[in-house]
C-alpha cells in the first residue's frame, strides 16, 4: 500500500505515522522542502526554538516526560552542530530522540559547500546510530528504523541526515511495519535461571539494598509499579541515582534518598556496608561509586541492565542479568511470590536499625535563617506548595540541581527531567518547554541557577510564542555555585571567573520577553511569592535571591569512599579535605 511522494513529504508522513505530535526545530536552507511539507498539514505541530541546542533539549524533555520519542528538525552545518550538545546529552542519559538534519545536495557533499558539515561523521560519537540518506528509495525504511532504534533496547538519539535533493526526489512511501531489524535485536527477556539465582540471593540477604536508576524509568510506568511491589514484599531499603528519582516514591517508607556524591548519608553508608546490592537499570557511574577500590567492599552484587556493555564496565558484579528492567522485575516479583520467599526478618530488622541511626544524622539538614533565603529552604517550600498538583520539574546543572534532587520528593516516574550524565547547563528551560507542550495542563517548573539559565535564555521567546506557561525558578546566588564550591574545596577559595558579574535584572528581562517576573529575597515573603508564580496563568521568571555562600552538602569529596562524606555539620575548613590525588578528579 505504497504511495508516491517527495522525500520531504515522506518525512512529515513518517512523523505522523510514528505518532509525533510536536517537532522541535529551526528552519534553514537545507531543510526548506521539509518545512514546506509541514506547512500543508496540522497533525504535527512544529515548535520553533531560538537555538538548535534548545530543540534537542526540548525534545528530551518531551521524551523523558512522556516515554515517547522526541523529534527534532534542524538544518545543515550550524543547525546540526548546534544540536550536538543535546544529542550527546540524550546519549548519556538514554533518552529516545530522532533528529532530522538537512544536508547539502548529494553532488555537493565533500566540496565544503555553504553550510556543509560532515554531520554523520560529527554525530557518530554522540548518537546511538546515524544515517546519511543517499537515495530516495532508502528514506522510508530509514525513517521508521530510526524511530525503532531510538526507542528500543537502551534508548538513545538517532540522526537522519537528508540531502536537499533527496528531499525533492519522489518515490514510494510505505507506513511502518513491525518487521524485525536486520542486526539490532536488544534482549528484553532475561534468562530465568539467573532470575532464580537473584531471588535466592535476595531471600538470604541480611543487609540488602536496592540501587535503581534511569533504566527503571525508561522501562515504563509498569516497571515502577513492579519496583514498588518488590520493595513492599521484601521490605528492602531502596536508593536511586539522579536519573532514577520518582520510580520509587520520595515519601515511601523504604526510601533512603538519592545516593552518590551529593546523596544522603544513609544511602551511601548502606551502599558501603550492605551484603547484597541489587542494581536495577543503573550503571555504576563515577558520581555514584566514588572511590572504586573502596566501593561497597563486602557485598555480593547483582546487576540488571538492558545493555550488556554496562555490566562489569567499572564494577565487577557477581550476577549479571541482561534484560529490560520491567520484564526482569516482573519475573522477580512473580517468582518471589510463587515460591513464597521470606526474608531474614531478624537480620533485616537489625539492618533497618542501623540505617535509622544513619538517618538520624539528617544529612540533608542545613542552618535555617530568618533573614536570607537558604536555597534548600526555597526548594522545600516549592515542594510543599506544588506537591498536590501534577507537577513536572526540570533543572539546569549545578548546586540548584543537587538541592532539587535532595529536597524535592518525586512520587511518580517521568516527572523529573535533568541532565545527569553530560551535566549540560542550559538544559532545563528548553526541557521544561518540551515537557509543558506534552502536558499542557500540568505545572512545569525549571529549577535553575542564575548562571545556567543564561545559557539558553533565548528559549523564553519559544515559551512565549507557544503559550507554554513554564515557571523558571532561579536560585540566584550570583555565583556558578558548584564551581565556587569546588574552588573553595580545591583551590584555596580563589574564585576564578565563577562570580556571575553583570547579571541582567531578571524581572525586567521577563517583562522584555512578555512574561511575568517575580523577585523575592525575604524568607517571610517566599510562600506568597511562590504561590503568585503558581497561580499566574502564563510563563514566569522567578528571581529567588538566596544565600550566596551556601555549599551543597553532604558530599563525597572526590577520591573518597562512600563512608567518607562531608556532612552539613562539618565545622573544619573544607579546603583541607581533599588530597592531591583527589584534586585531579572532576
Amino acid at each position, binding site marked *: 500500500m505504497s504511495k508516491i511522494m517527495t522525500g520531504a513529504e515522506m518525512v512529515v508522513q513518517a512523523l505522523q505515522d510514528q505518532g509525533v505530535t510536536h517537532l522541535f526545530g529551526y528552519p534553514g536552507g537545507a531543510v526548506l522542502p521539509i518545512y514546506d511539507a509541514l506547512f500543508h498539514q496540522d497533525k504535527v505541530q512544529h515548535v520553533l526554538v531560538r537555538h538548535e541546542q534548545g530543540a534537542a533539549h526540548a525534545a528530551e524533555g518531551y521524551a523523558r516526560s512522556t516515554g515517547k520519542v522526541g523529534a527534532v528538525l534542524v538544518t545543515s552545518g550550524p543547525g546540526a552542530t548546534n544540536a550536538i550538545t543535546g544529542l550527546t546529552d540524550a546519549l548519556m542519559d538514554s533518552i529516545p530522540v530522532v533528529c532530522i538534519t538537512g544536508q547539502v545536495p548529494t553532488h555537493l557533499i565533500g566540496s565544503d559547500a555553504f553550510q556543509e558539515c560532515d554531520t*554523520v*561523521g560529527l554525530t*557518530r*560519537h554522540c548518537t*546511538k*546510530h546515524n544515517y*546519511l540518506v543517499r537515495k530516495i528509495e532508502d528514506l522510508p525504511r530509514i525513517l521508521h528504523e530510526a524511530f525503532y*532504534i531510538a526507542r528500543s533496547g537502551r534508548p538513545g538519539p538517532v540522526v537522519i541526515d537528508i540531502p536537499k535533493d533527496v528531499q525533492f526526489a519522489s518515490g514510494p512511501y510505505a507506513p511502518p511495519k513491525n518487521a524485525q531489524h*536486520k*542486526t*539490532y535485536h536488544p534482549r528484553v527477556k532475561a534468562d530465568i535461571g539467573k532470575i532464580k539465582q537473584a531471588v535466592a540471593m535476595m531471600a538470604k540477604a541480611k543487609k540488602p539494598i536496592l540501587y535503581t536508576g534511569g533504566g527503571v524509568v525508561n522501562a515504563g510506568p509498569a516497571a515502577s509499579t513492579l519496583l514498588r511491589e518488590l520493595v513492599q514484599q521484601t521490605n528492602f531499603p531502596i536508593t536511586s541515582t539522579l536519573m532514577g528519582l520518582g520510580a520509587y516514591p520520595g515519601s515511601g517508607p523504604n526510601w533512603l534518598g538519592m545516593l552518590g556524591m551529593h546523596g544522603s548519608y544513609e544511602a551511601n553508608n548502606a551502599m558501603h556496608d550492605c551484603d547484597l546490592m541489587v542494581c536495577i537499570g543503573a550503571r555504576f557511574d*563515577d558520581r555514584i*561509586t566514588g*572511590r*572504586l*577500590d573502596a*566501593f561497597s567492599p563486602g557485598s555480593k552484587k547483582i546487576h540488571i541492565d538492558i*545493555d*550488556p*556493555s554496562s*555490566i*562489569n*564496565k*567499572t*564494577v*565487577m558484579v557477581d550476577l549479571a542479568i541482561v534484560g529490560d528492567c520491567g520484564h526482569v522485575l516482573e519475573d522477580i516479583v512473580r517468582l518471589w511470590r510463587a515460591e513464597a520467599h521470606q526474608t531474614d526478618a531478624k537480620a533485616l530488622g537489625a539492618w533497618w536499625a542501623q540505617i535509622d541511626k544513619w538517618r538520624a544524622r539528617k544529612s540533608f539538614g542545613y542552618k535555617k535563617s530568618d533573614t536570607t533565603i537558604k536555597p534548600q529552604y526555597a526548594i522545600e517550600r516549592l515542594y510543599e506548595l506544588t506537591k498536590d498538583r501534577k507537577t513536572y520539574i526540570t533543572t539546569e546543572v549545578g548546586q540548584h540541581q543537587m538541592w532539587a534532587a535532595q529536597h524535592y520528593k518525586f512520587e511518580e516516574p517521568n516527572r523529573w527531567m535533568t541532565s545527569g550524565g553530560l551535566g549540560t547547563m542550559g538544559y532545563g528551560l528548553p526541557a521544561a518547554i518540551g515537557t509543558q507542550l506534552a502536558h499542557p495542563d500540568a505545572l512545569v517548573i525549571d529549577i535553575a541557577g542564575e548562571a545556567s539559565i543564561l545559557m539558553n535564555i533565548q528559549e523564553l521567546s519559544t515559551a512565549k510564542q507557544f503559550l507554554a506557561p513554564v515557571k523558571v525558578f532561579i536560585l540566584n546566588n550570583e555565583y556558578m555555585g558548584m564551581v565556587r564550591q569546588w574552588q573553595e574545596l580545591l583551590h584555596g577559595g580563589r574564585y576564578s571567573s565563577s562570580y556571575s558579574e553583570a547579571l541582567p535584572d531578571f524581572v525586567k528581562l521577563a517583562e522584555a520577553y512578555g512574561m511575568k517576573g517575580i523577585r523575592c529575597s525575604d524568607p517571610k515573603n517566599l510562600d506568597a511569592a511562590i504561590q503568585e508564580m503558581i497561580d499566574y496563568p502564563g510563563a514566569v521568571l522567578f528571581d529567588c535571591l538566596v544565600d550566596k555562600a551556601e555549599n551543597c552538602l553532604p558530599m563525597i569529596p572526590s*577520591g573518597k569512599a562512600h563512608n567518607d562524606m562531608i556532612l552539613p555539620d562539618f565545622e573544619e575548613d573544607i579546603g583541607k579535605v581533599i588530597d592531591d*590525588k*583527589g584534586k*585531579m*578528579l572532576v
Partner: protein
Amino acid sequence: MNAQAALSPYSSSAGKTERHETHVLSVLVDNEPGVLARVVGLFSGRGYNIESLTVAEVAHLQGLSRITVVTSGAPETIEQISHQLERIVPIHRVTDLSLDNAFVQRELAMIKVRGKGEARTEALRLAEAFRARVIDATTESFIFELTGAPKKIDDFVELMRPIGLVEVSRTGVAAITRGPQAM
C-alpha cells in the same frame, strides 16, 4: 610523583586483573558506508588498543564484511570491547576467537631487501627456509612475499634487517575458527 599516583581513583582497577592479553576479534558487519569508521572510532574514543585491523567484503550478496581486530588489554577490558562493539547497530556478530583458542590466523607481508653479492645469497637462503616467495627482483633488490602467523613474519623481518631491509608492507591478521562451524 610516580605513574601509579597519577592514576585516578575513579578509574582504579578495583576487581580487575593485572593480566595483559592479546585477543583476536572477528566482527561481522553490514558492508555500508561508515561502518569501519564506527568500529575504529569506538576504539579511539574509548582508549582501546588496535594492534592490527583488516577488513574486506566476505559475502557480496548479503552485503557482509568481516573485520578482524587484534587488540590487547586486561581480559575484562577485552570483554568490554566486545560488548561495546555489539552496541554498534550494523554489526551482526562479534566473536572473540582467542577465548577458546581454536582458530588459525595468517598475515601476508611484502618485504623489500636491498643488497649485492653474499648478502643477496643469504637473503635467498633465509627466504627459502621461511618459504617466502620472490615476487620482484632487480640486480640489487628482492621483494619477498611471506604468509604466516605474525610471529613468523616478525622473525623473518628481523633476519632481513642486517642484510639490507628497505621496507615492509603487512596486511594485518585475518583469522577463522577451526572445525566445521562458522563464527
